[in-house]
């Protein structure tokens, strides 16, 4: 079955990204097709590569990046939410005159239309948030 996932909360502050990660892994294990993982609201903070969590804790951002590589996942960060919160890729840095980028490998920034399109194309959209 085609499934998409929306994540509305940032890592560590809230469990929603952990729940979504475990759900996506279980769905992949069962052979389902993850169409897209869409990061919205503070969920865009899952896509920074500049975090350094303690060694004895999970690395939420890295975990998504690794899973994306392993399964060719489409990890999309909402551009409007990212601009508010300072998640920046090369294109955004150039467009908005920023002196750095911080996006994690495997994520990309795109429009809200990607969420609606995922909902239309998927059999299920599962929302994880606060």
């Amino acid at each position, binding site marked *: 079955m085609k499934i998409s996932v*929306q994540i*509305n909360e940032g890592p560590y502050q809230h469990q929603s990204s952990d729940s979504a990660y475990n759900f996506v892994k279980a769905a992949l294990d069962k052979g389902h097709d993850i169409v897209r993982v869409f990061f*919205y*609201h503070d969920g865009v903070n899952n896509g920074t590569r500049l975090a350094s969590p303690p060694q004895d804790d999970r690395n939420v951002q890295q975990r998504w990046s690794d899973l994306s590589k392993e399964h060719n996942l489409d990890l999309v960060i909402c551009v*409007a*939410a990212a601009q508010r919160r300072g998640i920046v890729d090369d294109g955004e840095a150039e467009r908005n005159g920023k002196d750095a980028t911080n996006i994690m490998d495997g994520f990309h920034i795109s*429009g*809200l*239309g990607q*969420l*609606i*399109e995922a*909902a*239309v*194309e998927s059999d299920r*959209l599962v*929302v994880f*948030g606060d």
Partner: protein
Amino acid sequence: MAGEIKQFLYVNRKAPYGTVYALESLEVVLIGAAFDQDVRLLFMDDGVFQIKKDQNTEASGLKNFSPTYNALGDYDVNKIYVSKESLDERGLTQDDLMPLVYEDEDDDWAEKSSIKIVSADEIRDLMEGSDVVLSF
């Protein structure tokens, strides 16, 4: 996705300003309106505060996004459902809400209310009849 029309239901259960969810979910609704899907909005629980009239953010320095709800009719988003129980619990009536309207092209562009006050049973049917439920 060509030709496929799904029933979208946006469930708004959070108050505005205290958190950003109401503002950013409105942005989803506006973008989603371009996708030619069947869109319904439901305001329930604290979500009914999102369309309270007389919102004034001048002294707080926050962005007042409530006027945007008035534009929903222009985006063909005109099925707006509000929980009667949630209004009652909060001491509100429809008169406390912004008069959200649309122009009915099938009725000589007559201006009509987009708002329908609904019971818990009607909310149950709305949810069960939806292909996609986006919750904010």
